[in-house]
């Protein structure tokens, strides 16, 4: 799919609320981005100066939901350091400078798409996200609903109150597998066993996962077992989001004479090679 042309926009903040115990929910009015963004693409959000605090670099944030008819996008973020702390101070009615949509998103491989003539049974996709990582895969859950794929979403988090996207999945008709740290269900052998039990008989046609850690390794393992493609969304520190600053080297070992992939343009979504 050709990538949409990025634009910058001075986007009014329509909603800025707390969700769960630790996350912030932003709804931004930005018609062009809402209309063009692909699943898994992201924004660079410039944090406005406030009370003497100056944040120089924009912060990359996944586009959690796209509402092209309303001309809005949703972002969910956690407060990590100076930038997100200052971002949390922005009030409804203020504007945020955003650039997007950016990067390579998730794309269902042809094999996972319902054929033109209609497949015999619905194609299925497994999405896996933890914390705000759920946001990176939510666009694909939207796409699945639109395209008629059956989506199963593993939503992982510290506790039930901090699971992101449950309402979104319900609205989009996706099956949710909620797992949390406090009851141990998010831990690796438990989750792996649960997914194998759920899918060994009928594996999904694609696995989409956000995060560089154990979840990505689990997805790669299951993908290899089931023989299905895996796509993983990665993070890197970023300055431009457009491919010119070379700041967002993917955390992979490379030939010292050849630059490795850049997360902002070659990713954030990469094909997982086990």
């Amino acid at each position, binding site marked *: 799919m050709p990538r949409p*042309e*990025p*634009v*910058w*926009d*001075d*986007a*009014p903040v*329509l*909603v800025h609320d707390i969700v769960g115990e630790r996350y912030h929910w932003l*709804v931004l*009015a*930005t*018609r*062009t981005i809402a209309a063009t963004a692909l699943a898994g693409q992201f924004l660079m959000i*410039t*944090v406005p100066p406030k009370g003497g605090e*100056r*944040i*120089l*670099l*924009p912060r990359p944030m996944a586009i959690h939901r796209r*509402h092209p008819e*309303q*001309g*809005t996008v949703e972002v969910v973020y956690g407060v990590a*350091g*100076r*930038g997100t702390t200052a971002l949390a101070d922005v009030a409804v009615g203020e*504007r945020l*400078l955003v*650039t997007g949509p950016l990067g390579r998103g998730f794309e269902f491989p042809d094999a996972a798409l319902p054929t033109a003539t209609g497949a015999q049974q619905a194609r299925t996709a497994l999405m896996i996200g933890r914390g705000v990582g759920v946001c990176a895969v939510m666009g694909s859950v939207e796409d699945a609903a639109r395209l008629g794929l059956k989506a199963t979403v593993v939503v992982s988090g510290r506790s039930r109150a901090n699971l992101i996207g449950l309402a979104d999945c319900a609205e989009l008709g996706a099956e949710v597998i909620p797992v949390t740290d406090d009851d141990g269900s998010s831990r690796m052998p438990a989750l792996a066993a649960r997914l194998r039990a759920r899918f060994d008989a009928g594996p999904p046609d694609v696995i989409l996962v956000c995060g560089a850690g154990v979840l990505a390794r689990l997805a790669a393992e299951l993908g290899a077992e089931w023989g299905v493609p895996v796509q993983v969304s990665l993070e*890197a*520190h*970023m*300055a*431009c989001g*457009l*491919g*010119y*600053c*070379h*700041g*967002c*080297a*993917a*955390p992979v070992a*490379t*030939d*010292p*004479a*050849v*630059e*490795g992939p850049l997360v902002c*343009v070659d990713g954030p979504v990469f094909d997982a090679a086990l």
Partner: protein
Amino acid sequence: MNLAPPDATTDARRAFFDARPASAAAVDLSVRIGGLTLANPVMPASGCFGPSLGRLIPVTELGAVVTKTVFGTPRGGNPAHRLTEIRAGMVNSVGIPSRGAAGYLAQQHPHYQALGVPTIISVGGHRPGEYARVVRDLAGSGVAYELNVSCPNLDRHGADIGSDPDAIREVVRTTRLETDKPLIVKLPVLVSSIADCALAAEEAGADAVCVANSIPALPLERYTRAPALGNVIGGLSGPGIRPIVLRLVWLASRAVQIPVIACGGIETVDDALDYFSVGATAIQVGTASFGRPFAMVEIVRALQDRCLTDGAGDINALIELWRAE
């Protein structure tokens, strides 16, 4: 959710792309760097621009663009993390990945040419003798060369080439033999005497100096105290370095006759005028473009507007109004 539908493009953005008034466009902001005349004195800092930024802003309003530093042979750059932001500013240890001169010419230069703006090619080297070769390999591409001498001299235990006036002389002298195009020497901050470095460049035949590169720094993670950058050391940039670089531009401008291009923490037209007031002829914008992609274009337009409101016929008249001495 039932939210009021906003406009397709917000007013701020629409206004930005509206045509400028003819009076503004008529202001003469042109400056000369050696034999080259630029339509205005505003350009990006090396490494803080690429043709992809041209997708977001009317890049033809700039005086020139500057490429990321090109080395003679390919380099992969530093391991992640390559950049971070701390209170003091941005710190980057990108490490100048490069496709080499041939790779630049084949894969990158065409995109610069397509921008319709004069392209200044930034050139790097691991030893003073290497710059001339890279310029030769660039085969006349670009309108000028910016010699980034803030590179460790691998022949001299790694102190920057540009911290040694003799090495600067060698870089410029040998490169001068390869091209008649303007040569700009971009100096590092950590030098004993910026005046001596600028003078060395001028004496050896440089057409301008650019003052300065980012300032080497070591950012640590809070709590863990682990180095925040894969390369441990990176370059500090952004508004926090401005008062340090202002002094260097002031000293360099007093030392040499050739133009001084100021670079360091410029975000607004007032920052640019600060540098002009201490002797700069042109300015480069680095870090500011990340947070505000249109920062350079805004500065160009604000210079036009200031000329009109201050009754200055051209940029030199405007600068004269603001000379610190």
